């Protein structure tokens, strides 16, 4: 896998040095993704899934800092790369789609201005050629009458349309890797289906790899090839979507799956995970999940390492993993 990997993250640590103490938002995260692969990064709020995405993009703001690890993208380490080199990559080879499209779009500029700018920042082409490409990109993401919509401002679009524009901009330069940070969470169900459809066809067409960050396991289920489950800054389980969702081995993954309503019989109590997500400032020593874990024992006060299970691709950070079913 590592030989062909497009992106290979090894032991990434992104810490925030706050007045209250050090917050290890991303703690020893390792994964890799091949060309054209779809990786789901799942976790609840505060699990560090978004911060992992920001770390790859080089968008970690102080007091946060990448303090360790490597992010190897096409053979080059992004950690410690100069701001100028990073700028060349960002929006060009690696693009990000955010949860709130208004974060991507400038409210006082017309769509065409923003799209042309994104192309000209990375390529020497004529404005007319850039405009043509922008129009084409809008058509591809399913925006009706792109010619007139190019001359509109972001506020003249609905939420779903804005997200389409953001996706169109992200895909303008045919990136090798797209990081999507909950792009459908703020949208209505029918619109969410449309966006998922667009993203799926577009990445298939262009062969771009996709990291899909979400808290919604059901989105991952239909979309991703592989899944990483994060809890309190760490990856606790990793494997193919089929393995992880059908036979989760980490108690947290199991709990998360059981918590989703609609799988169990209606009106039955859901099997819930007791307690709540711990504050990253007051993490218990050892396994962060052990205070909520039904299988926790004395050994869990030590740090579990990520270890492979069996011969497969599934690995888990747990001393007492669940049996395969």
């Amino acid at each position: 896998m590592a030989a062909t990997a497009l992106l290979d993250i090894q032991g990434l640590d992104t810490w925030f040095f706050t007045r209250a103490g050090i917050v290890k938002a991303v703690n020893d995260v390792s994964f890799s993704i091949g060309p054209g692969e779809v990786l789901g990064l799942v976790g609840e709020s505060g699990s560090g899934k978004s911060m992992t995405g920001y770390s790859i993009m080089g968008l970690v703001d102080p007091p946060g800092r990448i303090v360790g690890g490597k992010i190897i993208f096409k053979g080059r380490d992004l950690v410690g790369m100069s701001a100028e080199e990073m700028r060349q990559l960002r929006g060009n080879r690696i693009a990000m789609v955010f949860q709130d499209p208004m974060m991507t779009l400038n409210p006082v500029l017309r769509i065409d201005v923003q799209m042309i700018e994104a192309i000209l920042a990375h390529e020497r082409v004529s404005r007319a050629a850039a405009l043509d490409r922008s129009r084409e990109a809008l058509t591809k993401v399913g925006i009706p009458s792109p010619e007139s919509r190019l001359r509109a401002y972001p506020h003249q679009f609905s939420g779903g349309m804005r997200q389409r524009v953001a996706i169109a901009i992200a895909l303008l330069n045919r990136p090798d890797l797209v990081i999507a940070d909950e792009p459908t969470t703020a949208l209505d169900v029918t619109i969410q289906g449309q966006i998922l459809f667009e993203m799926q066809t577009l990445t298939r067409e262009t062969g771009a790899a996709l990291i899909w960050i979400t808290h919604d396991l059901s989105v991952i289920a239909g979309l991703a090839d592989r899944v990483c489950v994060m809890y309190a800054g760490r990856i606790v389980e990793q494997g193919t979507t089929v393995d992880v969702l059908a036979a989760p081995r980490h108690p947290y993954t199991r709990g998360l799956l059981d918590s989703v309503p609609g799988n169990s019989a209606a009106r039955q109590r859901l099997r819930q995970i007791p307690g709540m997500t711990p504050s990253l400032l007051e993490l218990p020593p050892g396994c962060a999940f052990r205070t909520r874990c039904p299988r926790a024992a004395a050994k869990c006060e030590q740090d579990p390492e990520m270890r492979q299970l069996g011969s497969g691709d599934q690995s888990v950070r747990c001393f007492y993993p669940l049996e395969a079913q």
Partner: protein
Amino acid sequence: MTAQAEADVAAVKPPLLELRSVSKRFVRSLDVVSRMANLLGSHVREEVIHAVDRVNMTVRDREVVGLVGESGCGKSTLGRLAIGLLAPSEGERYWRGASLAGLAPATARKQQLKMQMIFQDPYASLNPRMRVIDIVGEGPVVHGLIGPTQQTEYVALQLNRVGLDPTLMRRFPHQFSGGQRARIGIARALAVKPEFMVCDESVAALDVSIQAQVLNLFMDLQAALGLTYLFISHDLRVVRHISDRLVIMYLGREVESGPTAEVFATPNHPYTQALLAEVGKLEPKKRSFVPVKGEIPSPLSPPSGCHFHPRCPYAMVKCRQTAPPLVKIGPGRWSACYLNDVAFG
């Protein structure tokens, strides 16, 4: 439930809450400039939004009714109409068969206690300057359910019931997590001993594992206290899990209603079918997402006839002209679609 049994229920015991053909219009009145322009002969019209358009709804005792729809469909407005936070532009509300219009102020206040609401945002719906003991305990004291001296004891009881540690009652809302705040909101609503609760997206802002805890709490409380819920949500999985009956709205109108299991098994209205197709499944199977075409139209200028026709794969000429009436398509099941005329007519 058979038609006969249904009729029996209706004859013997009036529903807990009944809304008869309620509508709510929001009007944005003209500003000075537009009024001046009108004086000078132009025709600037007021903007009118039909948030809720002639909706009938019955909620029976101890029933959980799920109200589903996308943003702008009027589900929150209908929830607020149901408990009286908003006054309907037209239509009437009945509580156990008695009209709620024109009650004397004292009676109305007492009546209002029986209906409580749990809001969506666990951050915005709690006063940041009040301690939990006051947030939960103020209502019962003001309404004379308990004396001021009993407040501590009473609040402790309420907090225990929703699974919060009573020793935390002197804290402020910002000292709690999202899930705990949701529980405070529930404790506050329960403190005045309501019979009917409207839960407006009450679990939408919570993480999955916390959402499961709060849903369990809702179900436990219903069993323990015999509560009736109107559960408003855009999340079909949540609604499917918790509700007995389902009402689906689209742009201010009810398009389908029926027992939850039946609606999920055989959705009738094309919009319901589209919605249910988008319900996320946890089967780890690569699927091609097939979208419903088109956007949700603006409630300011809804399409003519059936509001769903521009997005509907089966739209006929008739659908563009007149809105289909809500017709009975089975025991306890209603749907507003002309396709049923073809099928049943």
